[in-house]
């Protein structure tokens, strides 16, 4: 099956602004995914095409792209459901470094701002810090994040205000806020109660739809909002 692949290209050393380029590539709709086509272009048609990828199996989160108008992982998105004309652009809302590669520093800076690590000042136990199955289940969904940025960069609130920490940072805060072993929930809630925290969410659901791990992101954001409100009452 012949596919017309339209890719938004940008070389900062040559181009004043991004432009679309088309490539005709052969694809097996039953087997191929978008990443296979990007490889075909790079290996056979244009070696200068630049994009990120690592594991190629939906685990590392390196190859999130805007595919046919939606944020998706190139390695998970099957050709079968995309049609004969596929458009690929870098993740929206982040500065483009080259072609499909975006500068993720702002994204990771927001991630780091919510203290995404276990905080426990108590004495170190001899064994594990034990937790019931029910307590573990409370934040199970938000442990699945692979930091691909598909959610944050699909959010119109983030496009309008890049200071907004974004869905991914809130998801990772949620993972620790509701962890019974953690002691820094108050600090995280204080950070997320600020101007660039959870209140910028407009329940648009693009993040939930874009998440390649199926995390119920909007639910997590609203649970954090509720925790902030309950803390104040």
């Amino acid at each position, binding site marked *: 099956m012949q596919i017309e692949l339209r890719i938004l290209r940008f070389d900062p050393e040559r181009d004043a602004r991004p432009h679309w380029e088309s490539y005709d590539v052969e694809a097996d709709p039953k087997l191929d995914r978008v990443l296979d086509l990007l490889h075909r272009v790079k290996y056979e048609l244009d070696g200068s095409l630049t994009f990120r990828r690592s594991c190629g199996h939906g685990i590392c989160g390196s190859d999130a792209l805007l595919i046919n108008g939606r944020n998706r992982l190139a390695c998970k998105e099957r050709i079968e459901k995309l049609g004969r004309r596929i458009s690929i652009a870098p993740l929206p809302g982040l500065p483009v470094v080259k072609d499909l590669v975006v500068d993720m520093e702002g994204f990771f800076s927001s991630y780091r701002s919510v203290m995404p690590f276990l905080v426990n000042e108590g004495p170190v136990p001899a064994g594990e810090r034990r937790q019931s199955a029910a307590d573990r289940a409370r934040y199970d969904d938000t442990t699945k994040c692979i930091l691909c940025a598909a959610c944050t960069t699909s959010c*119109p609130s983030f496009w309008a205000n890049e200071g907004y920490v974004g869905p991914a940072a809130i998801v990772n805060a949620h993972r620790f806020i509701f962890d019974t072993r953690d002691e820094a929930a108050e600090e995280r809630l204080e950070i997320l109660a600020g101007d660039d925290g959870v209140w910028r969410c407009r329940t648009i659901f*693009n993040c939930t*739809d874009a998440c390649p791990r199926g995390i119920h992101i909007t639910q997590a954001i609203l649970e954090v909002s509720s925790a902030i409100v309950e803390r104040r009452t």
Partner: protein
Amino acid sequence: MLFRYRGGEGMLAWAFHRISGVAIWAFVVLHVIDIYLVGGNPEAYDELLAIYASPIGRVLEALLGAALLYHALNGLRIIVMDFWPPLTRYHRQLWYLCWLIFVVVGLPVAWIVLKPIWEGVPT
């Protein structure tokens, strides 16, 4: 990006919420002006009321009702999800429910508002 991103029902619900919100705000501004005219310039107020009662005025009135109804229903949808976050898993169904109520409530209201256009009865 707003027009390039192909969001789903959630994004449409939000976009309509914003558009209807701006429309309601514009009406509130207009309403403040027309109420001011009651005391400030009664003749101009009467003329404005005649425009409201004209066919175009009635269509605009029906659109205002639609904006108010949608904004209220979708607002309730958001409030319900705010209070019970697990309901976000059914946000699409809740949006369809909003549209069902919108049609059931909105059509009779639109009929009542627009009827004088073809019946020619000034009200």
